[in-house]
């Protein structure tokens, strides 16, 4: 067994192992989890020549400070992240996202903050050495599922990685960031539970993303929506991106770590192609919802996915 590891000198706010997600278990109460921003996840792996399903570390707002105690590696950071590399001779390099860097023994990686965004990703060449549970290394901290006993990364933890640096070259990918605050949705199964006025208001008003937002859900603040049928429904399965409206009329978008079933009426559902964009919005941001049809959503997903594929193929060697 390889013994390469980082030591955690500062854990960051919400640093967890994640990958594509854990599936085929929602009927047992296990939410998919996985990386919130799948696009940044895929890019992080590609830059360090990993398989696209390899696990990464996800962090929110403030990332970890890691010391490479043993071994040498190549890493990438994606998202919109401010970070520094502190070499063992105290030389400091200001890091750039969407490219790889070499890291040697005794170097430190200081992931200071995500900028105008929530989540960032750290991938290392070859991946982290953690044990999967039911085919995924994703952490679901609410249920203690995943590596590290299902917990967030903590101070003094050791973060093991599978192998020493192999690849000589470093790579980069040009990623264009989107700045749109309009999130497209499909009508939800209980859309008709809301009054005509509420239906109109939902699509015409701005919603503020509140601080009560995490991997499980995003609470929004706006003019309360009037429910004319019932504020409770028979519990039913939850789909990522569902927008439920409890009694107080304030919508909650259910995110990657959502409960598997729920009993509030759902007015709408965020389309798959706008999900990455939504989860990166910081609290305080005002967003709007635009209603589209299923065909348009499927078309939008094609465009979203083609764009990621194009980005992934546009990898270039750094000179």
């Amino acid at each position: 067994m390889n013994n390469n590891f980082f030591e955690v000198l500062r854990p960051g706010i919400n640093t967890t192992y994640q990958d594509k997600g854990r599936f085929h278990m929602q009927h047992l109460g296990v939410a998919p989890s996985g990386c919130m921003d799948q696009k940044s996840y895929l890019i992080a792996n590609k830059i360090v020549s990993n398989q696209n399903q390899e696990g990464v570390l996800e962090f929110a707002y403030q990332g970890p400070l890691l010391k490479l105690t043993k071994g040498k590696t190549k890493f990438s950071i994606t998202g919109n992240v401010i970070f520094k590399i502190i070499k063992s001779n105290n030389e400091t390099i200001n890091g750039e996202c969407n490219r790889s860097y070499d890291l040697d023994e005794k170097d430190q990686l200081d992931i200071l903050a995500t900028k105008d965004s929530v989540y960032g990703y750290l991938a290392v060449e070859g991946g982290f050495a953690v044990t999967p549970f039911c085919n995924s290394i994703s952490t679901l901290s609410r249920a203690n599922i995943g590596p590290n006993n299902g917990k967030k990364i903590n101070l003094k933890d050791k973060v093991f990685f599978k192998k020493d640096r192999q690849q000589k070259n470093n790579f980069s990918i040009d990623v264009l960031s989107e700045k749109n605050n309009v999130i497209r949705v499909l009508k939800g199964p209980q859309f008709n539970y809301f009054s005509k006025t509420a239906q109109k208001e939902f699509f015409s008003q701005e919603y503020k993303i509140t601080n009560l937002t995490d991997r499980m859900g995003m609470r929004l603040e706006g003019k309360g929506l009037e429910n004319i049928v019932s504020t409770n429904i028979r519990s039913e399965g939850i789909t990522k991106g569902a927008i439920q409206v409890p009694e107080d009329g304030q919508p909650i978008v259910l995110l990657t770590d959502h409960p598997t079933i729920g009993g509030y009426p759902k007015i709408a559902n965020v389309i798959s192609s706008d999900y990455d964009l939504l989860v990166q919005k910081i609290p305080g941001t005002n967003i709007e919802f635009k209603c589209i049809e299923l065909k348009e959503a499927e078309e939008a997903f094609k465009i979203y996915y083609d764009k990621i594929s194009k980005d992934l193929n546009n990898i270039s060697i750094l000179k």
Partner: protein
Amino acid sequence: MFKKLSNIGDCGIVCDFGDEVNQKINSNVIKLFHHVRKQVLKGNLKGILNYTPSYNKLIINFDLQKINSSTIIDFLESVDFSQLSFSQNKKKWEIPICYDFAMDLKNISKTLKIDENEIINIHLKTIFFIYMVGFIPGHPFMGDLDSKLFLNRLKTPRVKIPAGSVGIVEKFCNIYPYESPGGWHIIGRTPTKLFNTKDNSNPCLLSPGDIVKFKSISKKEFENLNNE
């Protein structure tokens, strides 16, 4: 047979079996769930990621990159319900319960004007059917309790309920797999672990459609089992 198929978002299908909540309708939901799951595990319907049965609905979630809703709807519409079986997947469980850990037995007894021992007897006599598992990992929703024990949720939910607590609401009974907040009336506690995060092949004890009967144990037996 389902009554209606519809989309939920662009990567979900709802199979709606009607408004009623009873074991007959739920058995159809679970039959379809087993059928879909079997097909997916066989490697058919590539791209289906999850299939979540609830009282009267089955929700199927999928990866839009690999499959789309019309393919799944075509598949669902071709399902012959008369060919689906249920019994082979049904497991029977005996779950130990210690009623000494009840938090609400006294209040229930007062509200319903039924003796505490009688409440326990009704609970022990009931053969529970698992309608669904979820909200959090391993959490079963079981029925049907005698209508004599019908109760609404607690007006003020508790902030913390210990893991293993057994609760009742309406005609349903649940077991809290994790320490969590909750609004059910707690009548006892089980030492049985419902979800094992270290067991890759079979992490979850109970599945939708399984049958559960409770067995009364003493506090001492509870502690012995709990320490195992």
